[in-house]
């Protein structure tokens, strides 16, 4: 039981990841899908950030004394991934705007019906 609670950060990661993934699959609205995708990606950011944490560790700055500090590398990595996530969201939004202009709707169902009736 205690290991279950000790690993709470990973449970949150899995929980969020599954929520995001479910939204991507289940939602028919293109914007909502992207929101789901964002939650999915954010969950992975949490995975990276929490894996760098050292218990009792400080920020990785040189200070007097022999302080233990958290691993800064995963944080740096995830900064890159956040930038990628922002770029993906921006591109998706731009696409959705153009889809809306072309189809007049952003519901997946309606788009399929319009394409099928061609």
């Amino acid at each position, binding site marked *: 039981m205690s290991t279950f609670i000790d690993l709470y950060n990973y449970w949150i990661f899995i929980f969020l990841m599954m929520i995001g993934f479910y939204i991507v699959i289940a939602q028919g609205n293109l914007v909502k899908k992207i929101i789901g995708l964002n939650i999915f990606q954010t969950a*992975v950011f949490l995975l990276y950030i929490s894996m760098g944490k050292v218990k009792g560790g400080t920020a990785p700055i040189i200070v007097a004394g022999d302080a233990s500090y958290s691993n800064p*590398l995963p944080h740096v990595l995830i900064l890159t991934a956040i930038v*990628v996530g922002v770029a993906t969201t921006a591109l998706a939004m731009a696409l*959705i705007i153009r*889809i809306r202009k072309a189809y007049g709707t952003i519901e997946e169902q309606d788009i399929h019906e319009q394409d099928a009736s061609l």
Partner: protein
Amino acid sequence: MISSHLPVLQVILPLIAAPLCVLLRRSSLLWLLSFSASLGAMVIAWLLLQQAGSSGVISYILGGWAAPWGIEYRIDTLNAYVLLIVTAISSVVLLAAKKSIEQEVPQQHWPMFYASYLLCLTGLLGITATADAFNVFVFLEISSLSSYALISLGRDRRALTASYQYLVMGTIGATFILIGIGLLYMLTGTLNMNDLAQRLPAVAQTKTMLSAFAFLFVGISLKLALFPLHLWLPNAYTYAPSIVSAFLAGTATKVAVYVLLRFIFTVFGADYAFSVLPLAEILMLLGVAAILFASLSAIYQDNIKRLFAYSSVAQLGYITLGISFLSVSGLSATLLHLFNHALMKAALFMALACLLYRQGGVKFSHVKGLGRQMPWTFMAIVIGGLSLVGVPLTVGFISKWYLILAAIEQGHFVLVAIILFGSLLALVYVWRIVEQGFFSASDDHTDVKEAPLSLLLPTWLLVLANIWFGIDTSLTVGVAEHTAHWLLELPAPVMPGATP
């Protein structure tokens, strides 16, 4: 001096040229800049392949930060070979790009088109050259984001939804890869592939490593369009501008196959990868399913571009089938088909670009009786199609031959039958196009002229390459066999042209 920087230079060249494109307005200048960047990268890739063949692995350390802390680029024959495929296809496709893009893409988007194209090339080359696992993810996203943008430039509005669908599936795949890399970092504290390979055996028993491998495998399979994760591919290839279809069909999935090979054989090790998961069975079954289902779907398509997109999924089935044998001839078949399939699909999609240029569409109704009006374009489709079927004297025969050899070696005679049946299905869908083009009379298209020379020349360059490499196999088979031995950690035969 410069020769020691070649591994990074081939990535930097298109990366610098991409933003410069945005500053230019004239179509010819844009084209010249992009083409020279791509051609430069191709020359470098050729030099790297020579170097890697003669002196083994080339290690390049970015910014003087020594590996495993800094980012390392490692060039061996495997990725030098993939680099050459990507840059060669990109350069030949670009030859035709000017004319085709001027017609298919509105003028205000030209600079963005070339910029995205070069960024996509940068990403693909970066994925291939790097030896840093996280770097793979970053370059993967560079190439993916730019390819979403490229696909959305298609004239049909369905290009937008195709691009959106690819974006969602591609991002899920890339995030899976990110999770896998994160778990590996958690276990070992390193991101350098070589370092990972040394440290992973110590933690091989953990469930974390198993899940890391599973996440990476699924993520890469999505990018590779492994059946049944191929759903994004047919729409993306169908509605993208023809130049983009030719470029992506020749390069993007090939690079994903390379990443799969790299992770299976270099990072995890074949022993681990094939024992913790039933990888041989998975790859074999999915490969066979891809060959059968995708080829059957191809037969029932009404749009020729879509037909060849499904055929691409089937060909990826042959490629993964080759990996599943875990033998020298199987892997050689995979590596050969990477090169050969890139050649034939690029040639076919370029021929479709010629058709689209004259007809504005590539449905069967558009090509009725066009064989007489556009003989060169149709001959290109016929030869490319024969190569797809695997007729002797074309490249398709070489890879099928090795694949069948690999199947016979292990006594899988059912697979031999399936491979031959797949070729038969390919013959059926290629024949449908020939029938429409040559034996179907139509009065609508009597005034149609042959495609312009600037489109035909690059197409025929690829078609002739299909025949050339089907007869003179010393380069492709030499590299493929050498690399297959090296991947399986067997004593490698000396590369042709290498100094002992």
